[in-house]
């Protein structure tokens, strides 16, 4: 079953890779945006959100992700979602997230995608 929400982040090739596990809800979404803000304030503009271990996302969690996308749009930054569960992928598609963010199969592909931008 779904674990408690947790995240870690690392910077790879000027990309911030945020990897999460557990339910992306109000709590999880807040932690993601806090982590994002911390890096964004330092001027980092390329982000990968690795959701390999987050197969359950609710609309409150999505509203935080939209906030991240909006902030990156303002700063000409980019966001790539990776390792999406098919149901999460479909949800993000319907919610329109991929109009302003990209997706990749895995973190390495995501980094390559950001490198080509």
């Amino acid at each position, binding site marked *: 079953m779904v674990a408690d929400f947790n995240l870690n982040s690392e910077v790879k090739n000027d990309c911030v890779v945020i990897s999460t596990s*557990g*339910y992306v809800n109000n709590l999880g979404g807040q932690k993601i945006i806090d982590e994002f803000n911390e890096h964004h304030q330092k001027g980092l503009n390329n982000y990968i959100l690795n959701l390999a271990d987050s197969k359950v996302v*609710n*609309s409150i969690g999505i509203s935080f992700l939209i906030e991240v996308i*909006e902030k990156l749009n303002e700063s000409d930054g980019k966001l790539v979602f990776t390792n999406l569960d098919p149901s999460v992928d479909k949800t993000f598609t319907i919610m329109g997230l991929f109009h302003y963010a990209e997706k990749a199969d895995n973190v390495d592909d995501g980094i390559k995608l950001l490198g080509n931008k």
Partner: protein
Amino acid sequence: MIDFEKDNAIVERLSLQVSSFQEGFKILSDSKTLEEIGENFVHLLRGNLLLTDVNLFYKKKEDENWQTLFAPNIKSKEFTEYLKTSEAFSLSYEDDKLYKVYSTLRCVDESYFGLVIGSKIDRSGFNSLDVITLQIFIRLLDNAYQSYISKIKEKNLIFSLNHKVVQLNSLVDTGIEITKLENYTQLLELALERAVALTNASKGVLRILKNDKVIGSLRLPNSINIAEALESPDKIETRVDYRGYSYIVTLLDKESRKGKVPFDTTDEILLMAFARQVHGAVENKQLHKEALENEILKKELSVASSIQKKIIPEKLPSIEGYEIAGINIPSKEVGGDYYDCRILENGKVSLVMADVTGKGVPASLLVSSLSASLHAYLEMNIPLDELAVKLNKLIYASSTSDKFITCFISILDPSTGELDIINAGHNPSLLLKKDKTLSKIEAGGVAFGMFDMGLPFATEKRTIDKGERILMYTDGIPEAMNENDEEYSDERLENFCIDKCFHDAAKFIDEIVADVRSFTKDTPQSDDITALYLIRNK
């Protein structure tokens, strides 16, 4: 008196500023956040009116405190006390104060902007043109704010509509996905995950009960304490009952960006829809499992039937001076009854009637073992009592404790009519004498495979004279049931044997079967019907 000359001059000056107003409105309405609106408005005012100190404040409701939107001078906040919110719009000039202009604007959503303005750069007073320009910019702020509010509403509406599509789509997808899952736990986990996510619940619990006792549970997230979680007043719950099991799904603490909110009717409908899907999936799985089991059983019976067909003789041998006929009608596709008649190398004839406990492949395999070993031993001319001991050992060793075989074996010397008989727990065979008296052959011993204690089997010798007959049968005939749960009975069978002395053995077999059928009528056959009938003609 109207000073037309002065008024015309103001209109002329304002017309020169039209493009500035238009540009200003575009800047304000393009602002993405309230703070950005505030900052842009302050810059526009400073540039257009050549002001030194412009500060903008905001509050959501009349009774709240002013919040700084954009205030280059921190001290300006102290002067918000002069901002009046009693009217929809106010604009006042206070020459004797540090800040000269105070204006408030009530917006469409009942929030307020408060404007505190210092002196002009050239320290001159505010003229009529300044006042009108200021009023126009405040109107532009009002319009830009309305546009900003509309955009937020539109964004929220699109988000909400998209979320409804997600809910609907997920409901359909979940219904399909759970039918593909192999085990119940995965099925229930998926349903709980989807129900929690789509209702924005922060937690979920699924309990499985049997006889009102919880026998299993799932929770999301993993770490929650179920007992504590279920105490939450903010929850919705639904229950599905199926074949003695109850599935209770509880969703807890609906989330919003601003904290907990109550679950609504849509959430309840969604939860019930998921519960119905779980019910349908569990039911389908059970039916599928039963269908598979039936299929396996059918295949097993088919295998058993082919074994049975091979060991029950298609045609009985012709014995000079005798007539013989037999029948086996299994109650299902295959039963545990067996009969045989063979002419041995020494010219004698073996007559065998047996009944194995149970049906299907295990029973037919056991009959097959009996048939093979019996014929091998018979050809070795072993005395029947020794043969019975050997068969008992073999059946005991090759069957489970609940499997045994009742068996009647008779070796006929056709020339003399002498019968060497052993009966291992089987129904007594019936010998109909010439004087129409019936003699039961009960030569004793326990069924084969029941015990392996070296118990002896007693043989018996009888003679069948000319015109006499023997009926060997299994309990499927006397125990055949009618619709009133009454048995055909030994008595009716014995009377039939006495009354119906047909010259034709096959005719006797047909008639006994017909008599059983006329007794049971439409009641399904509960056991195999097997019989072997021997008449001595010469």
